[in-house]
Structures are given as structure tokens and as C-alpha cells.
């Protein structure tokens, strides 16, 4: 089996996959991408912090028509992970309005996105429903 790399650098793989945000040392604002300074307070020091892996789906859409090469339909949404908003797809769910609703509890899940020419797997993440029934 080949190596695995995360789809994005803020996804940490391993036994307990989770996201890491860059948190502003001055004001606590969190970012997933590299920033030159904080968009909230303009300070320039950041520290990595783990983001909770469970959250609540705050909004979503079911995309039926996307750029060429993007498989449809899929559910795109925003998850509130205990105060940190995370963008991601809702996965392991039937992509229709009967099975996806705002307010539902979801949890981080990973899956293999693809494999490169050297056999390395890219691992992405999404959020799947937490079974509570």
C-alpha cells in the first residue's frame, strides 16, 4: 500500500483525523489557509489549533451542475464545529433534501480522493451524519 497525503494541509491524517486551524495569537480568529496577517486584527502571529471533529450543519446546497470534471450531485455545506465554521461536503448520505437538513449533527470522515502516478493516495475529508436514531 502506498503513502497517503492530505488533500489540504489543514487536514491531519492518522488514527484520529482532524482539522487544524491557524489561530491568531492576538484575537483568536481562525483561518484554514496561510495568511500574511490576521484579517480580523492585522497581527501576524498564528498558532495551530485542533478543530473539533463533530458539529452541526448550518447550511448546505445540493450541487447538480458544476465545472467539468466535478462529479455531481454532491452536498456542499458549512459545519459549525463548536464555534469554528468549516466548509466541507456532506458525505455518506443520499444527496437529496429528504436526507440532508440544516441543524443535523455531523462528524468528520475521510476518504481517498485519488492516487497519483507514484501510488500516493490523496485523502480528503467531508462530514457524515452522526447516527442518533
Amino acid at each position, binding site marked *: 500500500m502506498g503513502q497517503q497525503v492530505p*488533500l489540504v494541509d489543514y487536514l491531519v491524517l492518522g488514527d484520529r483525523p482532524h482539522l487544524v486551524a491557524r489561530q491568531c495569537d492576538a484575537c483568536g480568529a481562525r483561518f484554514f489557509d496561510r495568511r500574511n496577517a490576521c*484579517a480580523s486584527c492585522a497581527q501576524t502571529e498564528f498558532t495551530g489549533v485542533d478543530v473539533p471533529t463533530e458539529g452541526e450543519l448550518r*447550511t448546505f446546497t445540493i450541487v447538480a451542475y*458544476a465545472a467539468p470534471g466535478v462529479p455531481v450531485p454532491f452536498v456542499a455545506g*458549512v459545519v459549525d464545529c463548536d464555534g469554528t465554521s468549516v466548509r466541507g461536503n456532506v458525505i455518506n448520505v443520499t444527496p437529496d433534501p429528504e436526507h440532508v437538513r*440544516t441543524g443535523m449533527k455531523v462528524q468528520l470522515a475521510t476518504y481517498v480522493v485519488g492516487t*497519483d502516478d507514484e501510488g500516493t493516495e490523496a485523502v480528503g475529508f467531508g462530514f457524515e451524519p452522526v447516527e442518533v436514531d
Partner: protein
Amino acid sequence: MASDDIWILGIYMTKFGKHPNLDTVDLAAEAAMAAMSDAQVSVRDIGVLAAGNLMSPGGGIGQQLQKQIGQTGIPVYNVANACATGATALRTAIMAVKAGECDMGLAVGVEKLAGAGLLGGGGRAKSDHNVYEPHGRYGAVATIDGRIGTETMPGVFAQIGMEYGHRYGGASFEMFARISEKNHSHSTLNPLAAYSKRMSLEQIMGDVMIAYPNTRPMCSANCDGAAAAVVVSGAKLKTLGPDQQRRAVKVSASILTTDPWEEACQVLPDVNTLTRNAAQQAYAQAGVAPEDLDLVELHDCFATAELVHYDNLMLCAPGEAVPFFESGATWRDGSKPVNVSGGLQSKGHPIAATGIANIWEVCHHLRGEAGDRQIPDAKVGLAHVIGLGSACGVHILERSAA
């Protein structure tokens, strides 16, 4: 009229739709020349030109246009602010007049978009790397559009509407579709709209789904079009003819904002805060309250967007956009007509033209020149536009007392 007021002296929008035989400059020239004609001025009277064309923003549309309407040597500002480009051009011309650099300015927005297909999300295939290597500010090894949410505009604005529904309740697929039903109904009175056919709720809900809950007729229509406006200082307007003074429309507020940082704005664009900020600043600058507005043209790039802007523009109490809409208030015979032009969903959305075209609509009502779709005795109107990135333009316009 006060000397330091700013007025719209002339304004024009082309027919929106398909113009296969006209190039971008033709459309811009038609709008610019007709706006000057409407203003009863010539290109020699114009002291500044601000122009926008988002599909070719580096191409110098302003100077290209000068070659067609008159090269007079005046300063030209080519501007871009996504879907707020037209409003930004107008703001720039206004700023030049306010700064005392000239007493008359021309703003033009133009776009050729017919057949452009889905905007956002790249519009082209993105191939993954053959060997994974982190790239960009997310350190991504492969394309993330479609894997970590969506970059398509219908999907982004769908989430914006759904979030409002989650927070305040009541925002069903059918409710969003009814907003689109209203705008398509309004468009039947607008001969310049790209689409002016009435659509039933069933037709709208049964059409092709683009990004739930937005079906195709609930999305803004890509089309060709241009719009232009001549602005003038109050001091100069006093020297012009009585007909010009009577038809002039006062720019009581002209505001441009961007989004201040909010917790979630990095994962889903926040179109709410900057719109609310722009509206607050505009009402304060104009000395006008939302209750005073006789009509509103707001940026319904998607049916889901129109809903949230009822709230952002304070047309209703906070959180009350759904019952506000359901009361019928925003239909053209309601208490607060919104998008009587048909809005972006039916009138069309030639991006850089949109931010001037919405002002054209409001001006025509304030002048009593809106024909079949005239809102009776309209005195005050508001035009709103937003471009992702983000930029929001709000203009409040008032009928001339002359």
C-alpha cells in the same frame, strides 16, 4: 439643489439579451452616447470617464470606448469589483465630481455574456496533478472545488439563503421559488428584459435544478448588455436648462463597502454584513429611512439571495424576511416593490452593466418615465448590487423637486 449635491443627468440601458452582431465596444458606445443624449450634453462636456467590463478587465474598455465616442483627453478609470463593477464605475465618477476635479462625469458598464454558461467554479476542467504536491494557500494536492464545498455561484448563494432559513425558519424551496415567480411576473412589463415571460410556480420548481434550492429560472440570466450614466454637480446643474433640471435625479447616497471580518466569512462569503453596513451608511447619508422607499432594485443574482437582502437592507424587521415576502409586500402592487424590472433572474445580469442598470430602473420611475411598469408617484428609490470578493454598492435616489 445644493451646489455639492450629485445628480444623475442622463442614463440609459441597452436591451439586455443576445446581441451576436454587436461587440463589447458597440454596446458600451450605444449606452454611453444614449446616456449623453438623454442628459442633453456632448462628450466635450464630460470631465471624467469610469468604465467597467469584467470579462476583459485589463483591456482598457474606457479607452476603447473613447475611440468610438470621442477622444477628449479626459482621465479614464477602468474599474472592477465583480458584480458591483458598474456601481463602482458610477461611484468613481461621482468621487471625481465631489473632489472638484470636474463637474460632469460618465460611468459605463458593459458585458457580453450570452451563452457563457455556468460562472464560478472555474468553468473549465481542472486536472489533478500527476504527482501530488501541495500548492497554494491551502497546501492542496488536487482541486478542491466539489470536494471541499462548492465554488459555483448558484451553490454559494444557495447556502446563503439556506443559512438564513436555518437561523430564522420558514425558508422552503417553494418559498424561494415564489420569489422567482414574482420577478418573472414583473419582467412581463419590461421590454428591455432578456426574458419577459411569466413563469408559474410549478414551471420554476420543475425546471432544471442547478444547486438546490435554486433551479435554472431562479438563477441570474447570463446575457449581453450595457448601461451608462452621466453625473453632474449641483452647481453645474443650476446652470443647465429647466428640462434637464426637472429630469435630473438626485443621488442622495452613494456608498461602497467591502466585508469586514466575520467568523465564518472565510468559508462562506458573508454578503450580509457589508450590505447592512452599506445600507446603514446610505440611509444616514441620504437622511432617508427604509419606510421612505417607493421601490427597491436589489441584487437577486439568485432567488436565495433576494430573501436575505430584504433583511440586510432593513426593508423588514431583523429575521422577518420570510413573512415580509409572504405578505406580498415586495410585489409591484405591494407596500415595498422590489425588482419591478424583473431583477437579475429575468431582466438579466450582464455583470458590469448591472450596477448601473438597476439605477436606470429606479431613475425611470422617479422621473415618471417607466411606462407600463411605473410605480405611481415614486419619490425615493434604492439600488443595491453586490459582487463576491466582496463589494457592495448602495445608491439612494430621489426625484427632482424642480
